[in-house]
Each structure stands twice: as C-alpha cells, then as structure tokens.
C-alpha cells in the first residue's frame, strides 16, 4: 500500500518534471530561433543600409543633409540627377565602360569556349600540362603584371586607348572561364557529339552549330560574371588610362567625386546612377552571378 502511494507520487513527480523540462526546452528553442532571426536581420540591415542611405541622400539638399545625416528626404526632387547627368562627364564614362566591358566579354566567351572545347574533347600530347599551365595563371595576381604591362602597352602605342584595358581583361578572364566551360562540356553526354560526327559534320561546324548552342547555360554564367568583373575593374583602368575620353566608370567616378567634393547630394546621385545598371544586372541574373562566382571554388 504505502509502496504503491510512493510509486504513484514519484511517477507523478517525474511526469510533471518532464513536462516542465519539455516546456523549458521548447521555450529555449523559440527564444533561440528569435535570436537567430534577429541576428540575421541585423546583418541584412548592415549589408543593404549604406546603399539605401545613398539612394535617399540623392534626393535631398546639402543643407538638409548636413543638418540631419540620418533623416529622410523632406521633398522628392530629381534635381541632383539632372545636374549630374548634364554637367558632368559621367555619361561619357558610362559609354566607355559599356564599350570596354562588352567588347572584352564577347572575346572572352569566344576564346574560352573554343579552348574549353579543345581541352574537353581532345587528348593530345601535353594537353594536361597545358591545362595545368592555364590553371596556374588563374592564381597570378594582376599586380605582378602591372608594370611590365604598362611598358608593353606603351611600346605598342596602346596606352590611353580602349585596347589598353580590353586586351588584359580578355587575357585575365580566360583561365577561369575556360576551366568553367570545360567542366560543363565534360558533363555533357558524349552521344550528342558523336551523333553529329556520324552525320559527317566538320569539326568547325560541329563547334558552332552543335556545341555552342548546347553550352548556352554556362555561357550565360560566364557572360554576366565577366561583364560585371570588367565593369568594376579598377587597378588597370587607373594605370593604363588618363584622358576623360576613354576613362571607365570606376576611375571616372572618383574624378567626379573629387570635383564635386563638397556637394554630397549631387555625388550621391552620381553614385546611384553608377550603381543602378549593376543592381539591375544583379537582380535579374543573381543566380547566374552567384553560381558563377562561387563555382570555381566548389568544384575546386
């Protein structure tokens, strides 16, 4: 009897204890989930707020801004944009960046996919060594080539022309792009290419009419990644170009900032104008850009 009561009491106690513990655990789980979400949201705000602030500032006046840097625009005016677009060489820098990036990207795509096809589909003496050589060039920092490239471009009479950027941009993009496209071709079913060969297709035609259409997905990735990389490149543009007529946006933008030194709101409009194309390309092609920029690392 007494034993029974005792047992009853202990089971009851352990049941309440386990219920209490389970509740406690659940509370802890909820709290930690809230903490995690809060933490990630703070990081989110940290990542995007500077850009939002720049955007808001571009609609304000300097007097208003310096009185309260954190404030919101009190009135909505495109005046800063009109001023910057009409009075500064920013449109010219835009055009230059577009010409340089587009030309470079076209040749990067062509040369890299040609080389990638040869590496993927052909065994020839020294092919592995050549591939390793190309791979090792991927790790050469542009800084080490900077001074000799300047000397070479000067001798060729190319300094201060679009070619001074286009040629090195193509070259420095080739190793990475070739490796990326090659691994994509290796993943294709061999029958696809064999069938075309049986039909008596020549190698050259095979490449342009069969291979290029099939590798379009990876070409899209290379295209957006290299376009954005060329658009943003700073070091070569700083060293190889001097005059306003050819300067690209990253360097031109800083000249512009230097000129409008005290006019923060006009500068913010200029910075926003420079950001918009990149932002649009990023939001539209975000999956290609992200997978392209991280693919090399994951395939390793």
């Amino acid at each position: 009897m007494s034993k029974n009561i005792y047992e009853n009491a202990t089971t009851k106690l352990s049941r309440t204890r386990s219920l209490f513990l389970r509740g406690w655990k659940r509370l802890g789980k909820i709290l930690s989930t809230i903490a995690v979400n809060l933490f990630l949201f703070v990081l989110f705000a940290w990542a995007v707020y500077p850009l939002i602030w720049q955007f808001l500032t571009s609609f304000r006046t300097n007097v208003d801004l310096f009185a309260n840097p954190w404030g919101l625009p009190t009135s909505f005016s495109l005046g800063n944009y009109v001023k910057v677009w009409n009075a500064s060489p920013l449109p010219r820098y835009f055009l230059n960046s577009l010409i340089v990036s587009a030309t470079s990207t076209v040749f990067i795509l062509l040369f890299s996919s040609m080389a990638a096809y040869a590496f993927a589909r052909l065994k020839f003496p020294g092919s592995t060594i050549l591939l390793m050589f190309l791979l090792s060039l991927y790790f050469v920092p542009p800084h080490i080539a900077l001074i000799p490239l300047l000397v070479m471009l000067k001798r060729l009479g190319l300094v201060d022309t679009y070619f001074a950027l286009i040629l090195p941009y193509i070259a420095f993009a080739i190793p990475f792009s070739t490796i990326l496209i090659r691994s994509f071709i290796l993943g294709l079913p061999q029958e696809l290419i064999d069938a075309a060969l049986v039909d008596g297709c020549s190698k050259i035609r095979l490449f342009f009419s069969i291979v290029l259409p099939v590798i379009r997905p990876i070409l899209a990735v290379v295209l957006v990644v290299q376009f954005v990389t060329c658009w943003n490149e700073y070091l070569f543009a700083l060293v190889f170009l001097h005059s306003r007529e050819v300067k690209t946006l990253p360097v031109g933008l800083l000249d512009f900032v230097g000129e409008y030194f005290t006019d923060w709101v006009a500068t913010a409009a200029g910075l926003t104008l420079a950001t918009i194309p990149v932002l649009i390309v990023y939001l539209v092609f975000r999956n290609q850009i992200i997978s392209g920029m991280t693919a090399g690392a994951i395939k390793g």
Partner: protein
Amino acid sequence: MTNVNQSGPVRSTGRRLWDRPHVVLLFLLPAVIMSVMFIAYPAASSAYYSLFEWQGLGGSRQFVGLDNWHRLVEDPIIWVCVWHNIVLVITAVFFQVPAAFVIAFLVARAFVIGRSGYRVAYFLPVILTVSVVGVLWTWIYHPQFGILNEALRGTGLDELALPWLGSSKTALPAVIVVMLWRFTGFYIVLFMAAIARVPEDIYDAATVDGANLWQLGARIVAPMLWQVILVAVTIAVVSSIKRFDLAYIMTAGGPVHATELLATYLFKVGILSFNMGYGSAIATFLFLLTLALVMIQFRGMGSQQISEF
C-alpha cells in the same frame, strides 16, 4: 581507272584539312596566345625588371643586380606593409571565414524567415563598383557629418565619435570593417551552396540521434565540407595579400602609412614615383609571399584534414 583511283584521295584531302582531329588544336591558339602575352610574359618580366635601376618609361635602364632586393629588405615601410597584410590575412582566416560559415549554416538550416532574400542581400556588396563602396564608407566615417558619428553622438557616446579614417590608430580597423562588409557575403554564399549539397538524410539521421543545431554544424557538416573550407581559406589568403582598391580609395595608404598595404605601396613606388625597377621587386615579393602563405596553409590544413577522418 587511274583517274577514279586518284579522285578519292584528292577529294578527301580537300575535306581532311577541316576534318583532321588536330584542327581543333587551332581552337587553343587565341586563348594560349592571349594568356601568355598578357599574363605569363609580364609576370615573368617583373622578376627580370627587378634587377634594374629604371626611372620612368622613357628613362634609361641600368642593370644593378640585387640592389633593389637589398633595398626592399632594408625598407622599413615594406615591413609595415607586410604586417598590415598579415593582419588582413589573420582577420579573414580566423574571423571572416568562420563567421561566414556560421551565418551560412544558420540561414540554410535554422528556422529562418526570408531565406532567399538574405542570400541575395548578403551577396550584394560583393558586386558593387569599388569606387562607390569607397566613397560611401568614407562618408559614413566622416568625423562631422558621417552617420556613424552622428549615431554615436545621438546615443550619448560622444567620446567614441572619432575621426575614424583620419587617425592612425583607427584607420586600419576602419578599413578592415569595410573589407568585411564587402567580401563576407561571398563566403556566406559559397558555404550556402556547399551546405545545400549535403544529403538531407544526414541531417535526418543526426536529428533522430538528438543532435542540436550547433552539434550538427560543428561535428557533422563542417568536417564534411572541409574541402570547401580549405578553398575558402585559400581564396581569403590570396586576396588578402593583393588588396588594393578600398585602401587606396579611402585613405591612399595614410595617414602616415597607417593603412599602407603591399599593393598600395607598389602602386606608389612603381607607378606614381616612376621607380619601375624597385616597384617590380615589390610586385615579385608580393607574388612570392602569396605562394609561401598558400603553401604553409595547405601543409597546416592538409595534415589536420587527415586527422579529422
């Protein structure tokens, strides 16, 4: 008869030029020529130029042997730069990459609202034009009108409202914060892609065994993704040594070399002061330092990898 016999080979040689397998070797030519001419050759020239005293593009070139390398070893600024670059490496390897892994794991596996939005937002700073980033953060740090000091003053922390980029004590940390802002998203997204490739049943099995989120991340996922972590660390080391843009745009290496890096010093010496021989020595040194660090890191992490499994 003979005509018929000949016509076969003749016709086939006409086709053979485009049909021979090795015509595809021609496909390699543009890529190989471009990369040898504009990467390999200039990179090798740098080592050669470092043996000359050479002032300016038009100036005369004079062979001086290892004089530039002597000068490099005895130049105190070089060692200041090396120290700053090492600080960048340490921050990236021991803080940025681990933090990115934790963040990526939380976004991927914890109960998170707005997962895909976080991925896009965290990566955003990576693709912005560097001059925009540099100018924007120079404003944020502005002693008088910057939103950082404005916020500090607004919350009563007046004595913390420092001239962030203007003082040699705070300039380097301030620049490093911007580098973290700009590049951490890259590693987060890299790790998210890798974590997504871990098979779902591994998580299920671990959860059944009663593992919580932290144990799951630290004991199961991190060891599984050791290869990717190794690659991320390599990228972090290599890019920390060649950092140039942000430091040059925000502080130009100042005040008084407080944020001077090997790449900014190389630019000042070789391009701005036209000292191309010595500049080439610094460039070659930068490259050798990168190689050495990558090798050390591969040795260290390679052996650890073996003991993990």
